[in-house]
């Protein structure tokens, strides 16, 4: 049901953790639904120098989380904002159709983290 790539990313996720002095933090989901994704970003000169995640959720939630962090890391904020759901799903070698609902959460968390960063820097 899951592609080999999904299982690989899920069992060996990269960028797990918290960035203590993060420039932006974004969170999606709720304990009631059973998924919570938090993404932390560190920005340097408009570039996402570091991206980390913490996720409570299903295989899709975790594998999309790690994939989003990998795709976003090293990109400029504008580039990162252009990432689409499809980019994430393609990078994972596809996802089961009945799981597409949760595949978008990680990207939303990243966008929220960027918003959070922009909100702070606007001040």
């Amino acid at each position: 049901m899951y592609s080999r790539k999904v299982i690989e990313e899920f069992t060996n996720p990269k960028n797990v953790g918290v960035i203590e002095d993060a420039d932006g933090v974004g969170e999606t989901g709720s304990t009631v639904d059973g998924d919570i994704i938090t993404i932390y970003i560190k920005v340097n000169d408009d570039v996402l120098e570091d991206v980390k995640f913490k996720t409570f959720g299903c295989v899709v939630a975790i594998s999309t989380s790690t994939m989003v962090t990998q795709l976003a890391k090293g990109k400029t904020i504008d580039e990162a904002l252009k990432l689409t759901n499809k980019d994430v799903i393609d990078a994972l070698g596809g996802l089961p159709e009945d799981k597409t609902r949760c595949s978008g959460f990680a990207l939303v968390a990243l966008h929220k983290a960027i918003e959070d960063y922009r909100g702070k820097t606007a001040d």
Partner: protein
Amino acid sequence: MKRIYMDHSATTPVDPLVVDSMLPYFTEKFGNASSLHSFGQEASEALSTARQQLAESIGAKTDEIIFTSGGTESDNLAIRGVLEKKNSGKGKDQHIITSLIEHPAVLSTCSFLESIGYDVTYVPVDSEGILDMDEFENSIQDNTSIISIMHANNEIGTIQPIREISKIAKENDIYLHTDAVQTFGKIPVNVDDLGVDMLAISSHKIHGPKGAGALYVREGTDLEPFIFGGGHEQGLRPGTENIPGIVGLGKAASLAKERLGNDPEHMLKLRDSLISKIFDSIEDVQLNGHSEKRLPNNVNLSFKYAEGESLQMLLDVKGIAVSTASACSSKSKKESHVLTSIGVDTDYIHGTIRISLGKDNTMEEIDYVAQSLKESVDKLREMSAISKC
């Protein structure tokens, strides 16, 4: 990698003895049991033997056994068969009593029946999954035609007090059906001891082949078929009989009966050892279901801060097969209606797995599973956005 199967409530491997018993009926004794010639007679004798084996294993008479394609069909036949019979000409003013934690085979049947005008009461259960007997008794109406309460639950393994339920059903002259798909082969299942009018069995849960099942129908219980065709199985289940499948079910049933003295005890030991190992090594975990009135092979656990599907997949990568909820619903991530009905905390409910043991599991496997479970829970908790760490 050696694989460890601990999902026996979803399905079981077919016993090699059972496969052997089936083999002649594919290529040699392949006749249609309705045919009068020698090929047909071989088939019809096989059918009789299997019927006898199954009947004996549950204390029934041979002509009280209706073979079906599986547990789902048996449940459908029991409930709809009674209603349809009583219904003839009388409209749909009939009432059904069932529980909130039945298998979808019963629940979906009931909600279909509701949608076409029947009245259904879904009796709640307590926090360990036992039927609320007061609510049950109060739910009985003059027009109650059938009570359908499962013998044991497929997710949490709680065993219902069917004998007590039967007493009340009898006092009120209402048919009682029980879904014994999960209990047969694990605890004694005798139709007279239980006092049931109908009882559903599924072959593939007792080391028999998939695609076969049976409904016990007590003599004198009036049923109509709900599938229509030739007059097979006393007019209650048409279609050319699945002889190899039925032969396999008969063999599996008699093996299950024979082994009732040993297998359940073995599974019980493994179960209790696994539970204590897990509680010794992992924090924030709870056992769902009843502490004593529980299937000897069922371990249903909820972990805080670790999601069930992820946990199941980490175990799968280690070669261990367990289930997130019941196999039936694990593809659609919905909360289990069983866990909701027993009131599992939202903190815990998403972190639930079911480990269901089989007669061939070993203590060595239990050690490996306990160890792997700890590693996997730790790993997920580290990753988790809501853990304490």
